[in-house]
């Protein structure tokens, strides 16, 4: 059974997601002892990709069928295609704006106990479960499972294929689905997490997709107002309030806290060229 990480990266007008995905792949290569295959799904033709990018990714795949995110601001319209993009039997989907500071290889044996396992309890930089529902009004109001697709494991099984089919239907008709099944708190744009959550709810497979474990799968979600800190003291851009101590070994502290979980930094400017250089040195690139 092949195992690996899949990162979908399409550059938008404002963000260089390919660069972020490259840094994430470097950090996976640097930190993961057992499972460190990484696949990049991108709309950039192979010939145009940088040598270093080609070197760090084990697999590079095009976006299947047509690019549904053409002209889109957020570039999320292809997120229903993960099932069809991945070259692995067991896949963990990652958002591009993440880094891996420590080895979580041991998770894979635990994840393999389910067909699909989605993060529903992300953590603060201090390692507490996020309690804020600030950006999750629709989830609360509509009783949706607390889906975070930024770290999502799945195998290729019949049930998972059915879920992705439902997700495709919702992505392609999101306005109709959101109108029919969500109250007035519904998002005004396509949201990947809401679409996946709605698909899971409509199929009634909540108990197949999550677990009671708090510690995994999980990641640190660095939206400023999710840090269980009084909003008076922290801004949306957390980098204005909390220092980062990045080390040459690729590990780092946020404030006084060593980071051990996959780290979803959210603020793209947080990732510096110095950090990338340090990671490149670690993996001999």
């Amino acid at each position, binding site marked *: 059974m092949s195992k690996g990480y899949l990162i979908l990266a399409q550059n938008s007008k404002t963000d260089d997601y390919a660069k972020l995905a490259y840094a994430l792949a470097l950090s996976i290569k640097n930190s993961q002892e057992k499972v460190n295959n990484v696949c990049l799904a991108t709309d950039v033709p192979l010939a145009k990709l940088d040598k270093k990018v080609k070197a760090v990714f084990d697999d590079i795949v095009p976006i299947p069928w047509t690019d549904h995110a053409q002209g889109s601001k957020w570039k999320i319209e292809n997120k229903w295609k993960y099932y069809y993009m991945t070259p692995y039997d067991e896949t963990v989907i990652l958002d591009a704006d993440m880094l891996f500071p420590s080895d979580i290889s041991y998770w894979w044996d635990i994840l393999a106990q389910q067909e699909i396992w989605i993060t529903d309890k992300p953590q603060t930089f*201090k*390692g*507490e479960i996020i309690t804020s529902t600030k950006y999750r009004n629709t989830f609360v109001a509509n009783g949706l499972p607390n889906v975070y697709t930024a770290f999502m494991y799945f195998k290729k099984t019949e049930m998972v294929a059915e879920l992705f089919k439902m997700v495709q239907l919702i992505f392609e008709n999101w306005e109709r689905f959101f109108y029919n099944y969500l109250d007035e708190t519904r998002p005004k744009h396509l949201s990947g997490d809401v679409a996946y959550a709605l698909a899971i709810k409509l199929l009634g497979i909540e108990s197949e997709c999550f677990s009671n474990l708090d510690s995994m799968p999980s990641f640190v979600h660095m939206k400023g107002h999710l840090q269980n*800190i*009084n909003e008076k*003291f*922290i801004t949306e851009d957390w980098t204005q*309030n*909390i220092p980062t101590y990045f080390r040459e070994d690729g590990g780092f*502290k946020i*404030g*006084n*806290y*060593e980071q*051990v979980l996959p780290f979803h930094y959210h603020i793209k400017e947080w990732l510096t060229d110095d950090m990338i250089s340090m990671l490149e040195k670690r993996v001999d690139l």
Partner: protein
Amino acid sequence: MYAHNNPEIDYFKIACANALMVKKNLQVPVTLVTDEGTLEWGKKALGEEFVNQCFEKIVLTKRIWSFENKRTYSDTSASQKTLQFYNCNHWEAFELSPYDETLFIDADYLIMSSALNNCWGSENNIMINHKIFTTGSDKEPYSKYIDDFGIRLYWATVIYFKKTELARFVFDTVKHIQENYGYYKQLYYFSNGMFRNDNAFSIAVHMLNGFTDSNTIIKELPITGLLMSWDTDDVYKVNGINDITVYAEKPIKSTYLLARLKNQDMHVMNKWAINRVSDRLIELYNE
């Protein structure tokens, strides 16, 4: 147990009362660490025979008069005073303790149950608590974290330790933090300038737990948590053995909840309140 008096707070008398409570509830001897001035005062006020009855051993340490540590003490929200708080030598407890297994207990953590007897024979080298609970206002987040952005607060009110290398390392780290307190204050965002052992132990525990809140190396005590009665509370009455009633301040200042506690250890941070009932405690527990 430690006792270093200041001009208003008779820590020595509180320690005597609590030593009797320890003997009653835990049935273990108590060693007191104090200074010459405090001991002289205690013996004069309470009598040498009584003092010797309270403690198995008294260890005298030299008081460092240059140590300045001003603390604002409250006797409920209605009254506050700034006084010297002499607490710079708690890291010495590791060396000074004559026991293989020690429970370091702040004099104002009144022992009214046998709960801490669960510590003896522990497989852990050292145990200290983050978990607390209260009868009134919980004062979060500052009772849980040393700052909004800061690390988990561990309460150096009760520490169990064995004479092992790991435990020694914790106390040595606390000493190092104390000696470089200005640096650590900047690094860990303390809002308060006063030296607090709670902060120093919190940093030491945080470091030894891999700069996380994971409790992987340093564990918590085998109790549900430390019960806190803040210095904004007051003691109404000592009803009997292991039976006390307090006014616990609610989140709204100067409004109180009357709480009767039986067979429950309690950190009474209003020192005047304990001083007011210490004669009664001594009378009850000195059988």
